[in-house]
């Protein structure tokens, strides 16, 4: 049995009903595979004792689960009202220029996926950009070049 299987079993033990471990199990499977590939879904399902179809039906509801391949790095720009009021669109466009992709796309080398997301809950520190889920606050268009350089340097 895989390490993932054991980890999922441990998660299931935290809950009175094992199905509660579905979201954490899917997260683990995604971390291991990079996205929820058919294989990742099968592995999560096997650990949970659910069907892959069930796992897919749950995963497709949530924005943080990737149902197609994404880059090794994820750049998420909040474009909800508070961020947009102080220039989130300009930040997004700067990323699009630097990375040479449109929002929702992955760079040709498969390194970076750029996408917009709904409110990340950092409105007073806008614009919020999540780099591999770590929040950067007060991001302005001028900062984007350095951020992309940093991501690229991270290999």
């Amino acid at each position, binding site marked *: 049995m895989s390490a993932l299987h054991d980890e999922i079993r441990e998660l299931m033990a935290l809950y009175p009903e094992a*199905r509660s471990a579905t979201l954490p199990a899917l997260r683990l499977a995604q971390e291991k595979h990079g996205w929820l590939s058919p294989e990742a879904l099968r592995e999560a399902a096997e650990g949970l004792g659910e069907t892959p179809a069930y796992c897919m039906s749950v995963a497709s509801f949530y924005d943080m689960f990737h149902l197609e391949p994404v880059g090794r790095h994820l750049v998420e720009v909040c474009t*909800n009202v508070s961020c947009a*009021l102080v220039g989130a669109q300009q930040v997004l466009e700067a990323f699009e220029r630097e990375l040479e992709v449109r929002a929702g796309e992955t760079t040709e080398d498969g390194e970076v996926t750029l996408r*917009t997301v709904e*409110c990340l*809950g*950092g409105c007073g520190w806008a614009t919020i950009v999540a780099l591999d*889920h770590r929040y950067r606050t007060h991001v302005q268009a001028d900062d984007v070049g350095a951020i992309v350089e940093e991501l690229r340097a991270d290999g």
Partner: protein
Amino acid sequence: MAEPRLVVLQGADERDLTKLSEYRAIGGYDALAKARALAPQAVIDELLASNLRGRGGAFFATGRKWSFIPKPDQNPNPHYLVVNADESEPGSFKDNEILSRVPHRFIEGCLITAHAVESKHVFVYIRGEYLGPFEAVRDALEEIRDDERLLGGVTIVVHRGAGAYICGEETALLESLEGKRGQPRSKPPFPAISGLYASPTVVNNVETLATVPPIVAMGGAAYAKLGVENSTGTRVVSLSGNLVRGGNYEVAHGITLRELIYDLGGGIAEGRELKAVIPGGSSTVILTAEEIDVPYDYDALAEVGTAMGSAGVIAIDDRCCMVQLGIRVSEFYEHESCGKCTPCREGTRWMTAILRKLEAGEASDSELDLLLDVCDRINGKCLCPLGETAAMAVASYVLKFRDEFLAHLDGSCPFGSQSPLDGVVAPVNQHTHSPVAEVPA
């Protein structure tokens, strides 16, 4: 300007309260010992005396909510405390800061509440995006993991969400916590009777719980002296938008919106004029710049037709086009509608479509009426408030800025690219998820 009286964030400016030793040094976990020396009902009575009302948005009296939980001899099923840490309302980011800066106060609140409702099981449902706050709570729990005296046999499991605004609705949250798609349940039964795993469940917001230890420490009556009648105590207000100093500010209820915006927020950035204020997160009715002398409390805001919601104040300056604001807000709710109820699922799409036509200068008079009609047809027809609040918010832009909407009927947007919301790419406009099983050509 009202003197800030810190309750929830008390001590966090002077000390690193993420550390157990620092929290202990200011009397941390003393309230827990005090509460456990009381009968559960006596703790509930303190909360009733404090008149603390839920900080998640519904403002329901916390003590009353606890009192709905059956006693163990009335219902032998395990009782659960579920924490709603799924803060996702555009404009609100208070729970982010509370969890990050005073995680032990929050945990102490959970343990006191568990005692009051006679529960041994706490689940903290935190939105998946909140990695920093998750780590703060996880690390704080790690510090007390072996302290059985403190935990008193209570287990606290932190459960991370995966990106869905609707999971902030309590029954959707429970569905999600049970490992399902996060779609709201029909109520009744309410969670107090049949919640998590069909057992008695209290669902409380993060800030509500972080307020519990100070209430137990100072006594409910003393807490009730803070703030104003019906809106007692303090509130951590999130300020954002076109302000000089956005951020979270803990204030006593009753401070005016003007004081919040100009005294605490430093006024409108870049010397611009205030045009409108969203007072309680994007699902609340908008206020014009002329309406901001209203006190920030439940009754006063209700009197002017709006709400405190989750206390996210968004200040909007005079460059912003209200039709564009409507589009962006509508796109959010369209994206986050869970799809269960038709009026919300279809209505939010219609709202966006009509607003886009308006912005493009392609809409007629009748379509402006159609927009209001669509809003009206969502109201009161869904299981949860998501669609309804979207409709009420957007309708309020039309009603309060009608001239601006009418000006769009003449062929173009009067603001155009001068408005910061012009052409903003919302998630609903991009396609990260292509169909997994592609149909062969």
